[in-house]
Structures are given as C-alpha cells and as structure tokens.
C-alpha cells in the first residue's frame, strides 16, 4: 500500500487542471474549518481570566503565559492522573499485543474445530462494543472485587480490546511465511518455541499497529474508567478532565489547557507512528 502511495506522488493521476485548483481551494477552506476549533482551544489555553471575560473569543491573548497550564496541572492532580493513565495504557497494550499474537496465530494455524469457533467467538466483541454491556461489566467487576484496583481496570481493557486485536492479528497472519515455521518444527522446535523465536519477530509491525490503535482507545476511554475507578489516587486523565469540566464551568481557559495536556501524548504517538495507525485502520478495507 505504501509503495502505491509513493508512486502516486511521483506520477499524478491527472494533470493539475482548473477543476483541481477549484477543489484545492475548496478543500483548503474546509480543512481550515476543521482545524479552527483546535486553534481556538490553543488560543483559549493562553488567555487570562480577565481576557476570557472581556475580550472576544477570537482575539489573541496579550502575552504568552502558562498560568492556565500550571492551574490545570494542580487541578487535574496531574502527576497522579497522568501516570495512572499512562500505566493502564502501557500495561494493557503490552499484554494485549502478546495475547492477541499468540491467540491469532493459534487460530490461524490450528485447523481443529474449536479454533474456528474461537475466531467467531472473539468477533462477537467487535459487533457488541463493551459500552452496550457496561452495566453487567460493572457488576461482574464489583463481584470479583476488581473495581477500584489497577488490575481490575487493566483486566477490563484487555477483555474489551481483545476482539479487535485478534481480528487485526489474524488478518496479518497471511504475511508470515509458513515455510519458516515448518523448518523450525523439523529442527525440533515445540509450538511455543516456534512462535516465540520465529513468528513473533515477524509480527512486530502488526503488533505496532495493534499497540497504537489500542493505546489511543484506552487513553481516551471514559465510561469504563469512570465506572471502575472512584478512588482519587486511581483516577485517569479523562475522568479528571470531565470533573474539571463540570466543576469549573466559568473558568474554561484552565479546562482548555487541560485538554492540550491530555491530547499531546496521543498526538505525538500518532505523528510518530502514523504509518502503523493507518495500516490498522484499513485492514479489510482495501481489495486484495
């Protein structure tokens, strides 16, 4: 897919006509409209309280000051919430990558009936998003004493993310040459050793795709985090931001600074791993 894209940039499909120019102008306007709210957030995040009330929302702040960021930092209990979110996200995606890799490989390689059933079983989770089942998910967590624990919320992020992960990984399995595995087996490797020494290294790009797609889901999750965690020292960034939104309806320049802080890590992750992200999104969308 990437190669195709490059070719396209070298040899444009059509010549740059007047119609193309019109499209270009139109799309520039539309893109500007899409970006405008983000610029407005950034602009707000630098405004003082006085400027917030007295000047137009569209005017620029008189000076570059970081008071809002400092306030947001303390109000969100930033050190705790940020490291919590970071911890939940990283642990969940690492375990997800490992689990989905082994699961998908076993499903792709073992032809026994149970494994074919497994694939359909996992796909059910894509068709029924966990949000639809938040109530029993909360009850089961409560009964198993998983609420208000780090393990509990990580467990649920894994359980709710595994469907998509298995789907993604299984569709990548065709890129793993089966001959290599057969060679390893003839050399006397067990199934486990074959997987960990031959297959897993080949799955790295797929795992990168899985990691970034899930990281972005978990980082932004609100419903599960708000249900599972009520203790202050376990709260996530999104939950803290939502309480900030409802507590401080008037002083929203602080909220805007909080937004920037929370979006930044995921934006950086996206920009540096864009390639993998797009790969994960387009699985199944392109006719082979």
């Amino acid at each position: 897919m990437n190669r195709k894209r490059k070719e396209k940039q070298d040899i444009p499909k059509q010549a740059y006509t007047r119609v193309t120019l019109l499209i270009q102008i139109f799309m520039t306007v539309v893109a500007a409209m899409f970006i405008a709210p983000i610029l407005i957030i950034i602009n707000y995040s630098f405004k003082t309280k006085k400027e917030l009330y007295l000047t137009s929302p569209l005017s620029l702040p008189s000076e570059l000051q970081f008071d809002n960021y400092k306030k947001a930092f303390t109000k969100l209990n930033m050190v705790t919430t940020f490291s919590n979110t970071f911890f939940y996200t990283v642990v969940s995606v690492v375990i997800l990558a490992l689990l989905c890799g082994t699961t998908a490989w076993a499903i792709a390689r073992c032809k026994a009936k149970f494994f074919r059933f497994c694939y359909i079983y996992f796909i059910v989770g894509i068709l029924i998003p966990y949000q639809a089942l938040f109530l029993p998910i909360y009850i089961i967590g409560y009964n198993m004493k998983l609420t208000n624990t780090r393990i509990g919320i990580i467990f649920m992020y894994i359980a709710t993310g595994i469907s998509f992960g298995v789907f993604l990984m299984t569709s990548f399995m065709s890129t793993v040459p089966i001959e290599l595995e057969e060679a390893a087996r003839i050399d006397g490797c067990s199934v486990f050793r074959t997987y960990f020494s031959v297959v897993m290294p080949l799955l790295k790009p797929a795992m990168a795709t899985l990691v970034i797609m899930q990281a972005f889901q978990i980082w932004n999750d609100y419903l599960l985090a708000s249900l599972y965690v009520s203790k202050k020292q376990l709260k996530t960034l999104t939950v803290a931001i939502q309480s900030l939104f409802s507590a401080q309806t008037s002083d929203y320049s602080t909220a805007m600074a909080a937004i920037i802080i929370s979006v930044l890590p995921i934006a950086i992750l996206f920009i540096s791993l864009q390639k993998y992200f797009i790969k994960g999104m387009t699985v199944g969308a392109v006719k082979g």
Partner: protein
Amino acid sequence: MKKNNSMEKSMERQYLVMVLPGFIIFTIGLIIPMFMALRYSFTSWDGMSSVKPFVGFQNYIDLIKDPEFRSAWWFTFKFTIGNTILQNVFALLFAMALDSGIKAQKLYRTAFFVPCLISAVIVGFVWLRMFSNVLPAINDLLGTNFNFLLFGDGKTVLSGLLIANNWQWIGYWMLIYLAGLQSIPSDLYEAAKVDGAGAFTRFKNITIPMLAPAITICVVGITTGSLKVYDLLVSSTKGGPGRASTSIIYQTYTTAINGRQYGYGSAMSVSLVIVLLLVALIQVKGLKSKEVQA
C-alpha cells in the same frame, strides 16, 4: 502413524494453551456479562440486596410502555441514521477530493484526521464552548444573527451533536476511503474513458464497486459507533435539554447506576445488544452480497 497422531495431539494441546488465556479473559470480561444482563433483565434487582426477585418479562413489558425509554431510542436512532448518512457521504467526498491530484495531500489528511485523536468527552466540551461562546462572537464580528446555541434547544440539539460527532470522525472514515481509492488501478478509469464513460458512470461503475469493502467497514463502524454514544453527551448536553439528547446508554446509566434499578437497566442493555446484533447482521449480509456482485 500412531506417533504422528500423538504428535498432532500434543501440538493441538500447545495451541490450546496459547488461545486459552485470551479466551478466558474475554469470556469473563464480555461474554459472561452478556448473559448476566440477560439474567438480571428478568429480575427486579436493585443492585444492593442479595435477593434478585424474578419477575419474568415484566421489565420488557414496562420498557415498551416507558416513554423515557422510547424517547431514548428515538434519539439514538436519529443520531445513528444522521451519522451514517453524513459521515459516509462527506468522508467519501473528502477522500475523492484529496485523491483528485491536489497538492499537499498529506497536510489535508492530517487536518481532517486530528479531531478523532481527541476523547469524545473533550469533543463534547469543545463544541459546547464553540456553540455558546465562539460562534456567537463570529456573529458579532460579521454583524449576522445566526442562532448558534444549538445545545440549548430540544429542536436543534441533535444537529449540534451531529456537527460535533461528524467533526470528530469524518477524517477517520475518510482515511479508510482514501486507502480504498488509492488501491483502485488507474487503468480501469482510463479504459472506461476510452469507452466514452462519463464521470458519473465511472463513479457508479468503477469507484463504488471497487470501494465495496471500505463501504462495508465504514457503514458498520459508524452505525455501531453511533448506537453506543455516551461520552459525547456527558460533557456537552448531559442528555438535555429536557430529555432531548438522552441516548440509550445514557438512559441505562441513569436508570441503573443513579436510579438503582439494575434489573430494569439490564433489560435496556439487552435491547441495545439485540439491536446491535441485528444491525450488524443485516448490514454485513446486505453489503457483502453487493461485494460479491462487484
């Protein structure tokens, strides 16, 4: 032969060990809850007491009569239809515009994509501010008098939420369409041009059939995504004004968690699961059959 058989058995056992951890976690985290919801939906459990009185289909009978439940579904339904149409149309249009040979395609791609990296809770808040503070300021600037307070009126709240949701997700689906468009071999278009096919015929007979897998993914993704809307509402409308923007999940949350009616709330969850499964089944079937024809 015998040896071979036992080796296969041992391999199968090893594969099983690899599947099992994920299988168990998934079962506990999603499949068992699904059956729990079904079971509780036949009780009048309040979530706290140890007794869960069995009431049969009473909850479902009450649901059908419950105006709040019906209005929640009506809103969710309108929101879903609106999103499915708008997001698909705009995502495809934008993708085609970006694929038409304009310069700096990557820049546009990023501009449209960035909003979907933001949590829906934040998107809701940002649009709350956009409608109540920023856009009225544009009115002042231009001397116009548009009513931008879309979240303040039950009649306009749906359009406001559609704008917010479309702003967030169009770029995501656009990227999928773009990848689909770029995988269409250009000689197909050239051959059609030689045969004298006009732009619309080419779109109808080449672009759409070749995009069929992407269309399936986008339609199913947007529909399921809209049916589960909750985060967006929490920070923007809180289900209001009145109940005008209470989605089915929002209603379940209020009923079960705040109202302590776990049995009744479970019945609501079950209704959503049934709808989700039906929608997915119908769409995948309908859209897949189109793919085969193409």
